[in-house]
């Protein structure tokens, strides 16, 4: 996997999330700030005319969506409840197949390969996922991360071999300093924010190419949310990240591109600031301005 230089943080949307302001905090006019935005890496994931239909549903949950996901960027999926954003996200690592009666049309390409052709356990290690509820397993902190690394049900390799990789994953998730003194503690004793970062560490431990996040902060308090969002900023240098969020301010803070979905359709896809300040579709404008939700 080619290493890309960490993209310059977009200055405009970073620390002043809710202010719609033609100039950002540093006084750089918006168009220039946009021009300063990072050059994105190559496309890692391509969603190509994907439709998903649940058995018994009148209309498809996702309807002919095409989207690129690039290395080094965060793609934020927004839209009202039931718009299909989570379903689309879950189709990217074929988790949607676990729902009985769900059917997907269209292709999803990971580095040019159809995800249907990739062996499923391998695909899910390359396209890792964070869930809405922090869901550590009922084991120790160490074992939670180690479980991700270990091959299937095997206990090998041993603790000493795994330790460096567990530490690396916990450091990347920004949790190491808080838990290093007692890795044997049950993971369920951690706070909600720590649990979610543990889940991120677990997802990173398999060294994925793409990280999927399904409303990762909706169960967290504002401080933990800030920590996780900072983490997303740091992680996007080496990963392609797709995040589903209900929180428009969050989409604006962490997203590089935003896709707005409504009733299964992709309404608009644009760079974040453009979508929020100058939406092309009326429905997008109504939604981001809070006319409906």
């Amino acid at each position, binding site marked *: 996997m080619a290493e890309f230089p960490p993209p310059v943080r977009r200055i405009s949307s970073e620390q002043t999330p809710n202010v719609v302001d033609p100039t950002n905090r540093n006084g750089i006019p918006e168009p220039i700030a946009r021009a300063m935005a990072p050059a994105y890496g190559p496309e890692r994931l391509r969603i190509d005319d994907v439709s998903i239909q649940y058995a018994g549903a009148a209309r498809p949950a996702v309807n002919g969506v095409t989207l690129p996901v690039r290395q080094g960027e965060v793609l934020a999926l927004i839209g009202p409840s039931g718009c299909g954003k989570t379903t689309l996200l879950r189709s990217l690592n074929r988790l949607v197949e676990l729902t009985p009666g769900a059917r997907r049309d269209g292709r999803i390409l990971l580095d040019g390969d159809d995800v249907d052709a990739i062996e499923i*356990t391998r695909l899910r290690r390359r396209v890792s996922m964070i869930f809405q509820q922090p869901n550590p*397993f009922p084991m120790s902190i160490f074992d939670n991360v180690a479980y991700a690394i270990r091959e*299937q049900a095997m206990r090998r390799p041993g603790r000493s071999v795994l330790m460096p990789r567990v530490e690396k994953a916990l450091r990347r998730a920004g949790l190491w300093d808080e838990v290093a003194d007692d890795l044997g503690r049950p993971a369920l004793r951690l706070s909600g924010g720590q649990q979610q970062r543990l889940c991120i560490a677990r997802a990173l431990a398999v060294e994925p190419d793409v990280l999927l996040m399904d409303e990762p902060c909706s169960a967290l308090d504002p401080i933990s949310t800030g920590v996780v969002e900072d983490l997303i900023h740091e992680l996007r240098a080496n990963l392609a990240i797709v995040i589903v969020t209900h929180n428009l301010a969050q989409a604006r803070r962490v997203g590089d591109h935003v896709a707005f979905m409504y009733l299964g359709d992709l309404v608009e896809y644009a760079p974040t600031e453009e979508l929020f300040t100058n939406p092309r579709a009326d429905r997008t404008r109504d939604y981001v301005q809070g006319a409906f939700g």
Partner: protein
Amino acid sequence: MSVPSPVGAPRSRWSRLRGELRLWRPLDLVGVASAWLVGALLVLVAASLLIYMGYKGLQYVNLDLLVSRPQPGSDQSQTGGILDPIIGTLLIIVIATAIALPLAVGAALWIVEYGRPRWLARVVESGIEVIAGAPSIAIAIFGLAIFQLPLFSWASFSADGGGVFGRSFIAAGVVMSLIAVPSIFATTREALLSVPRHVREASFGLGKTRWATIRRVLLPTVRPDIATGTALGMGRIAGDTAIIVLLLGATLQLQAGSDIPGIGTLQGTGSTLTSYVYNNSPTGEGNAPEKAYAAAFVLMLLIIGLNLLVAIIGRRRAGNDLPR
């Protein structure tokens, strides 16, 4: 104790309760009063059972009784102890649990985690429900019919003419395992169903197979529930009489079915505490009521012990719960 209450102290609990009750509607008062009455009655029944059995039992239980073998005799002073029934009870519990545990947990895992083909899952589920509802005497007579088939001549001893006796620890243990399956199955299934979907998906999302998820995530999660169901099932096994009488022979002493050490015992007949109580009870054919009381007391202690185990296991799980 009559300690004078300091001046200005808050009203006593009792007078506060009286004040509160005055606000209640009469019908509610009647309802609450009868609920308390019924509850107290049930406690009274349970308590008097325990006290009576304890009083009767403790009179006759002594160490000698527990470690000596039962003997035939027409007078209680000659009939020996209850060592063989105790061994028989433990043997049956071990055999039946060893069979029931993997069977029930496997069935619960299959039904909750796979559930395909669906018609078969439904058949198995209602089959277990039927077993749970069937009287054990019916299960016992069916089991006897099975184990008397020539096919199972290895499981017990055969008469000279080739007739298979069909009664042995193997036969009783196997059939007794059916008694424990429903409770283990039910607690395991409920526990699995209460594990949130996103916990499984977290494991699948890491590229784990269903089997790896079951082994490393689900089974450790539901282990306390499996233990609870198993302890309950053991209680049912220890308390069943019909299967013992029909399938273990309810003989006074352990009688090996063949000369092979160990296995011979499994092929042979014996008794448990329940059948011992039945055979010696004052209203049955028994002539040793004191021994029956003693054995019933020991049996009750055993089952209370199992229930305590359930309580302890149930309490331990509190700290290690998943987010629901």
